[in-house]
């Protein structure tokens, strides 16, 4: 698959229209994980629109996005940066060996108190 097709698939998977972005930066102004994002929410929108896929596929931000939807809620143009981030993350973890955490690591990160909900959501966000 060439990167053009990959961009097309990611765009479709996100269900959002990045071309509507007016580059106001409100998503990044709102993002609670901003400092942990090596690629900022507004950059996700602009880079997917420009087809700069390589950087996105190799970034750390997809694992630090909290999926809190604050960026989606406040976008004045109905663009959903979180959905683009999710679409990129899916692209990465669906690749062979793309899992972010492996099941054998889990016992080390689990403590007594962890709710089931956290385990399942983490697993779903980071693994194929």
């Amino acid at each position, binding site marked *: 698959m060439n990167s053009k097709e990959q961009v097309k698939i990611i765009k479709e998977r996100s269900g959002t229209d990045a071309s509507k972005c*007016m580059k*106001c*930066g409100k998503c*990044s102004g*709102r993002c609670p994980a901003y400092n942990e994002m090596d690629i900022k929410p507004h950059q996700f929108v602009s880079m997917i629109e420009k087809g700069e896929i390589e950087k996105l596929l190799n970034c750390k931000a997809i694992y630090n996005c909290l999926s809190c939807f604050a960026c989606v809620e*406040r976008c*004045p143009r*109905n663009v959903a940066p979180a959905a683009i981030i999710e679409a990129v993350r899916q692209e990465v973890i669906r690749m062979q060996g793309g899992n972010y955490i492996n099941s054998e690591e889990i016992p080390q990160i689990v403590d007594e108190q962890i709710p089931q909900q956290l385990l399942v959501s983490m697993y779903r966000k980071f693994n194929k």
Partner: protein
Amino acid sequence: MQRIGVFVCWCGSNISATVDVEKVSAVLALEPNVVISQNYQYMCSENGQALIRNSIKEHNLTGVVVCSCSPRMHEATFRRACESAGLNPYMLEVANIREQVSWIHKDIEEATEKAIILGRTAIAKLRLNTPLTAGESPVIKRALVIGGGIAGIQSALDIAEAGYEVDIVEKSPTIGGNMAKLDKTFPTLDCAACILTPKMVDCAQNEKIDILTFSEIESVKGFVGNFKVGIRKKARFVNEKLCTGCGVCTQKCPSKRGLNDFNMNLNTRPAIYIPFAQAIPNVAIIDPEQCLKLKNGKCGLCAMQCPTKAIDYTQQDEIVEREYGAIVVATGYKPISLENFNEYGYSTYKDVVTSLEFERIMNAAGPTSGHLERPSDHKQPKVITFIQCVGSRDTSGCGKPYCSKICCMYTAKHAMLVREKYPDTQVNIFYIDVRTPGKNYDEFYRRAVEQYGVNYIKGMVGKVYKEGDNLVVQGSDLINNEQLLIKSDMVVLAAAIEPDPSVRKIATLLTTSIDTNNFLTEAHAKLKPVESPTAGIFLSGVCQGPKDIPETVSQASACAAKVIGLLAKDKLKCNASTAGADEMLCTGCSLCENVCPYGAITYIDKEFRLGGGRTEVRRVASVNPAVCQGCGACTVTCPSGAMDLKGFSTKQIMAEVDAICKN
């Protein structure tokens, strides 16, 4: 037998690039009754019109079909051309092959075919055209201006200057509008009151101008040149003629806790009040919701104190009916409600204010007498952060999709004023784009940056929250690619502006159209920016679209020029496309009378010869052509088909249907 000439316009390449104009004129030349068919680069040009005129004479044409742009564009032009060549101007039909063909279709073959069909349709209609003559109706030489802001004031002054009487109807107790609330104006920083109040006084003193404040439009009847307007003068409980504006009542009033809407509710006022010192008319008004006397019958202090006995607790709303030849709509704007923008904390934190509130805070006549203080604790702020585009350019449904146009400039103005008066204050401005088209506008903005050291940050704010006594503005800086947390003492929101909500009802009363954002629609976006599509109705100021003061004033004067042009005529040509009943078919059933919006149809008993010396008196419909506007409602209501509309007759429309479907 009609002798028809067909004229196909290229419109430069606008039409000819997608429509094979040669083919269109060649094919249409073969249509029955067509005696000449030509094409030319610009039919609307002088040469193009000459071509039409000469052909009419040379070929003795009885009718002309022009295949060109929309008839809404040049129908009048071509009608004049026909008329000057001696042809009845209504023996013309326009086939719209630009807006409906070349501009929307790409395939040349398809577009050419459609252009030919539209041409044939126009020919089919034209074959059935008959010469029409427009009647005339007198023009009432008086204008109505709805709204007494700077737009309405300027229009009224200009109309009065030309010698015509003009009434200003303003819904609030004083004229002046939003501009009266402003502190300084860009790009020259002169004081708004200094330039506005002389104009307000001019209005009051001009004997041609009658100002009806605290009044609203109740009903509108009639048409261009002859409007009948019902105006509701709401009860202000003070006799306007007796009140001298001395203000004694306002000092004595014991009920002092009403919100002062002139000061954007930042302080309070008494139940009887004069909106502001330079109000026109300088007359008090009682707020019945707040007045103790009107609410529970106890008090009456103001009436006792009034030296001219002007207080009248029994005053009722009054409806006055007046006639006008032209109407100017100048209903202005208001900032949008910020309830959808709670991330900026407007409803939570007192120190988050709108720009219009900030104007009052900075204004010497405002609630703080011009001292910069923040509302929560009256401390002078050391850091002020402005946020632009609050609700503008927002397609999410929370705000408005358009640019409000004035915010970039007034925010720069606010920043400069703060830095000028309080140089130790830090001023930050979050912006998406700084838009400054206009004479000396960009220079103005650059002065804010270069001379006044205002900190412009390209990015948007995600959240405003409180931390201790301060507000924290969390926003992105897109240039430095970082997220900023700016501790601020005060936050000012440049809220989007929207048309004043009263415009909805007024548009309905005036039967003029309104767009999805509630701005009134102009007759043509470029060429008729101050006319509404409804004849005799003109648009002044922000009711038509966002504008700053210089633009508003220009448009107000343009509007006045249009009104003067109209009122200068003694008579207006009426609509020539009027209804009429075929008396031989009419049964006098009165159905048509029921649907006529203008009352143009009456019934007469008329004697008809039956032959053999016998006669019969029958009731038949009679249309007053000076009143009929040609909508055609009557024609469809008429079961016998007696009622028909000239220029859009049943036969003509049926012929169009036929011609379109034949292909």
